[in-house]
């Protein structure tokens, strides 16, 4: 929103305060000023002139003018279609600046031209592009006078972010801004001039039928004999500086009053609209708006209709074309109304029309403003066009009154919340300046909130604290430390373990942590035959085809692998992220924090990758979290996993996910050059699992002996099975077994050679060769009993 300082100055004297000071103070007190325009600074040496002679130029639309600028008569070549003898114009003399360029002597049509007659758009003070400005005849006495002395062309215009004024409906007009600035700089706020509406009491009233609960107040007034068609130049300047266009007086004046008091207004041609019906729209209602576009009105919007129930405006959004004012209009019905903010927002959004009116209505406007706006518009209109006559009384349907809000507060409360002792006088004077009614009984302050702040902004003590503190100045509040209880905070294991796991994966295993989205990529999954479920979808399925919420991380990580695979022959990526694995009895998402890992390699075998990933997964389980976990037979794994290369991460307490090789179908589709191993771990569950503390084991002081056994083991027998058998052969000197290697060739048939090392040591003596030999033969004999031979 743009705010003209000239306009503000009509009600507040800002002398001695620089624009920079206003910006700084306003930023800290009210809202951020995002931009400043020094309007008029690019216009100089433009004076009033009179066309005293006009001659056609052969083969050209241009005319040769003689223009009297008081001290001299200038010869000017001019192309404006409205140039004519006797016209009072704005003349940019040689050397003048006009909206960014300099006027010089110029050859046009072979004739030297000494200046330019200016159009409003060329000076940046109006929207008319059809010709040069036609000044009223009264300016004939001002020939040669700089137009800046006659019109408020020099101005400072602030641009304020609309969003930052969301909660301040009162600041959507200049008068509200003037009140704010008057308070900020402790200056007086002059009253806004209006006619006395009660003067029209004897006139006929307009029939208003308000059938909609969404219309809080509908006020209107009619006037006739409006002869002036064009807005006065100062009015046009202000409208243009504030980002609007000047069109014709009746359209402009409604905009003008809206920019002043913040109340959107509409002018109907009184010949076409004589009665008002406010009604909720029905399915299929349409309207042709002022812009000439037909809009379908969604049911539940509010429509303004005429006496024949023909829609004439979308309430709070846009007026209709057929009922609107034209150049011929001389009698008018002015609407000034208040509607339910939510319904206007909904209508405006669903129709796709965001207007100056709808933006204001969305902020919950004060219904008390409707009468002020009408009294103001008649005041201005009568000043511009003396012949205007009001033809109706102030007609008003005031359906919904906001409650009057009173807040009782003490200066102590305010001071304790601000953290600075604010004197009662400061509190009171601040609030009074902002329009609050204050009653101080010495102990408590009873505050009545002004209607323009009571629609949603201010309702409780904390709101008053804000008003006082912001005007007091946040930069004047001294920062003060405060005591915290010194209790060590215990942190959640799932959170601290998350960092530890990430550091391990990224440093020890050189993997890359990636972040992705929560969506399940249906198209990608389909293309690569990845069967994954979404238990929950976005309500609005138009979200670029990815409306499902993921239930596992691996499909997304495979997508990332696919996107990166041409840059890296070896890929190791992981993410710790959220997935939704179903809905509970209450139909709420069952959310889990998962760790997903993808290892892909163009050089390693499937087996190598599998065991590399097994090492990583167990490292996290055992060394990061501290649980005693291992892989076990996996029954439940996704269909994109290789059924013969998969294991479940388990402890005695439970299961925490799986790891495995990619199914050949998916693997080939992704890229057959790569072997891929993946793991999907329920990290939240794992991190909360019971941790076993590590106790020191006794270590022998005597030399240990490592003894290798190579057994021929049937392929059907797993390492764990072999260890189960071995474990039954007990010995005092056995410290433990470890896996060494395994090997297989064609001659071995359905068996493989498995090498296991036994570590032997005694706690009280150095082992003798007899002891070692006894152990060896015992083991071999034990295994033989279990039909496992030593390799020949």
């Amino acid at each position, binding site marked *: 929103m743009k705010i003209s300082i000239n306009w503000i100055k009509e009600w507040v004297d800002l002398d001695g305060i620089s624009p920079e000071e206003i910006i700084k103070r306003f*930023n*800290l007190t009210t809202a*951020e000023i995002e931009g400043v325009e020094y309007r008029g600074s690019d216009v100089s040496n433009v004076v009033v002139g009179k066309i005293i002679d006009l001659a056609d130029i052969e083969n050209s639309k241009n005319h040769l003018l003689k223009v009297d600028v008081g001290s001299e008569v200038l010869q000017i070549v001019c192309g404006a279609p409205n140039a004519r003898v006797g016209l009072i114009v704005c003349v940019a003399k040689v050397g003048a600046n006009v909206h960014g360029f300099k006027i010089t002597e110029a050859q046009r049509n072979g004739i030297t031209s000494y200046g330019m007659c200016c159009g409003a758009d060329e000076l940046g003070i109006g929207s008319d592009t059809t010709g040069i400005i036609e000044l009223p005849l009264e300016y004939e006495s001002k020939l040669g006078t700089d137009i800046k002395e006659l019109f408020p062309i020099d101005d400072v215009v602030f641009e304020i972010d609309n969003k*930052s004024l969301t*909660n301040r409906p009162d600041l959507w007009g200049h008068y509200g801004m003037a009140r704010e600035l008057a308070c900020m700089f402790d200056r007086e706020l002059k009253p806004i001039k209006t006619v006395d509406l009660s003067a029209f009491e004897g006139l006929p009233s307009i029939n208003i039928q308000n059938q909609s609960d969404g219309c809080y107040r509908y006020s209107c007034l009619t006037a006739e004999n409006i002869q002036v068609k064009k807005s006065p130049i100062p009015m046009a300047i202000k409208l243009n500086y504030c980002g609007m266009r000047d069109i014709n007086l009746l359209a402009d004046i409604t905009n003008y009053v809206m920019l002043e008091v913040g109340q959107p207004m509409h002018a109907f041609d009184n010949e076409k609209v004589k009665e008002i019906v406010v009604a909720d729209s029905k399915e299929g209602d349409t309207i042709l708006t002022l812009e000439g576009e037909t809009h379908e009105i969604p049911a539940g919007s509010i429509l303004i209709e005429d006496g024949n129930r023909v829609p004439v405006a979308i309430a709070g959004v846009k007026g209709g074309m057929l009922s609107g004012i034209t150049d011929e209009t001389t009698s008018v019905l002015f609407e000034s109304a208040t509607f339910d903010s939510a319904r206007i*927002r909904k209508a405006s*959004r669903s129709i796709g029309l965001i207007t100056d009116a709808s933006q204001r209505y969305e902020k919950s406007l004060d219904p008390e403003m409707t009468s002020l706006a009408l009294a103001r518009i008649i005041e201005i209109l009568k000043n511009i066009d003396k012949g205007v006559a009001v033809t109706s009384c102030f007609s008003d349907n005031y359906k919904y009154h906001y409650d009057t809000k009173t807040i009782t507060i003490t200066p102590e409360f305010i001071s*304790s*919340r*601000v*953290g*600075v002792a604010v004197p009662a006088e400061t509190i009171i004077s601040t609030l009074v300046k902002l329009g609050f009614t204050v009653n101080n009984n010495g102990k408590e302050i009873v505050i009545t909130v002004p209607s323009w702040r009571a629609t*949603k902004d201010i309702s*409780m003590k*904390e*709101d008053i604290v*804000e008003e006082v*503190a*912001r005007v007091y100045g*946040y930069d004047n*509040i001294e*920062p*003060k430390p*405060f005591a*915290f*209880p010194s*209790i060590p*905070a*215990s*942190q*959640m294991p*799932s*959170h601290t373990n998350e*960092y530890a796991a990430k*550091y391990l994966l*990224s440093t020890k295993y*050189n993997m*890359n942590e*990636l*972040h*992705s*989205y*929560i969506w399940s990529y249906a198209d990608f999954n389909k293309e690569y035959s990845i069967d994954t479920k979404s238990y*929950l*979808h*976005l*309500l*609005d399925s138009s979200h670029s085809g990815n409306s499902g*919420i993921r239930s596992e991380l691996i499909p997304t990580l495979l997508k990332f692998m696919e*996107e*990166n695979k041409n*840059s*890296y022959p*070896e890929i190791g*990526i992981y993410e710790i992220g*959220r997935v939704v694995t179903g*809905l509970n009895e209450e139909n*709420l*998402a069952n*959310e889990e924090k998962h760790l997903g890992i993808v290892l892909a390699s163009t050089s390693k075998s499937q087996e190598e990758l599998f065991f590399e990933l097994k090492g990583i997964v167990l490292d996290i389980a055992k060394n990061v979290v501290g649980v005693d976990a291992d892989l076990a037979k996996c029954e439940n794994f996704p269909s994109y996993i290789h059924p013969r290369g998969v294991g479940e991460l388990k402890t005695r307490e439970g299961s925490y996910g799986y790891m495995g090789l990619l199914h050949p179908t998916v693997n080939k589709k992704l890229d057959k050059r790569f072997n891929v191993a993946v793991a999907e771990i329920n990290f939240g569950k794992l991190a909360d699992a019971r941790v076993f503390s590590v106790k020191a084991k006794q270590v022998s002081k005597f030399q240990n002996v490592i003894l290798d056994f190579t057994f021929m083991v049937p392929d059907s027998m797993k390492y764990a099975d072999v260890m189960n058998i071995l474990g039954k052969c007990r010995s005092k000197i056995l410290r433990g077994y470890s896996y060494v290697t395994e090997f297989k060739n064609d001659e071995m048939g359905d068996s493989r050679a498995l090498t296991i090392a036994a570590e032997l040591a005694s706690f009280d003596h150095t082992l003798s060769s007899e002891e070692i030999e006894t152990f060896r033969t015992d083991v071999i004999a034990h295994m033989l009993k279990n039909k496992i031979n030593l390799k020949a």
Partner: protein
Amino acid sequence: MVEKINELLNMFNERLAGLTSSKEVEEIRVEFMGKKGKVTDLMSGLKEVPNEQKREMGMKLNELKNTITAKLDEKKQEIQNEETTREINSMPEIDYSRPVIAKKGSLHPRTIIQKQVEDIFVSMGFIIEDGNEVETEYNNFDAVNVPATHPARDAQDTFWLENGQVLKTQTSAAQNRILRTYGPKCKVLFPGRCFRNEDLDASHENTFFQIEGVVVDENVSVSNLIYFMKEMLKGIFKKDLNVRLRPGFFPFTEPSFELDATCPFCGGRGCSTCKGSGWLELCPCGMIHPNVLSEAGVDPDKYNGFAFGLGFDRLVMIRTGLSDIRYLNSGNIKVLEQFGVRM
């Protein structure tokens, strides 16, 4: 005898001069000093020397033995030195400037910076909490005082789910649960991933991170909040930054503030990061709205506090120099690996 000794010594000296390897030295040692060596041979001739000369000859022979042994050791050392020098010189000098080709792992830049931020808060006694990404309408909106008609609830802004839940639009969705869990006196930080129905561009994401904190106690004031924010930002940027509070408007807090800090990159002179203003908008904050407290079972007449939300992805972009927010969720290893594991 003397002649024989001199002869042998000369012969030895001659042979010694021609030696080039330790092996040859050892061969000569055996030849002269071995059990059947030339010196031993000569020694056995001592018994034929007249008795009066025996002592003198014995000394001379010992001298010969010592000389030969010393010279052999000396020669051996010399040759070993030469051999070591040859060995050293035979190896090409290592080009220490050659880079090491190693696949380097990386943490997501968010992880690195989030840890740094969290460490600061942990040192201030905060508990670090977590929150769900799929939230109930109650937690996301009602519990934190967002009016039923607030535009934020529109489908244009919020990802609504089929079951009536939402993808949380702000970390404040966790406030109610956290205040209920930790009671009226608490300091909790809760980073989290949030979602808004936005079109993506270089500075807009539909999936982004925030870090939110709440402090609830008795008699907490705006001046406490300013103090806290200042110290916290000092910790994050490792610089004493000027901060300013501007009025803001959020349903969760009253009063609400926008907290700006002097741009840490230009020191307030104005640069591209702060778009010339000298200030960086860093952290919306405010005094927790009484409705939010009472909704979580905390008596707002007795307790109050403040809440703040760091626009964390913005901080990450500032710190990393990444100009496009979309990189953060892109899974683009080339972009993300460059930050390694620390910043």
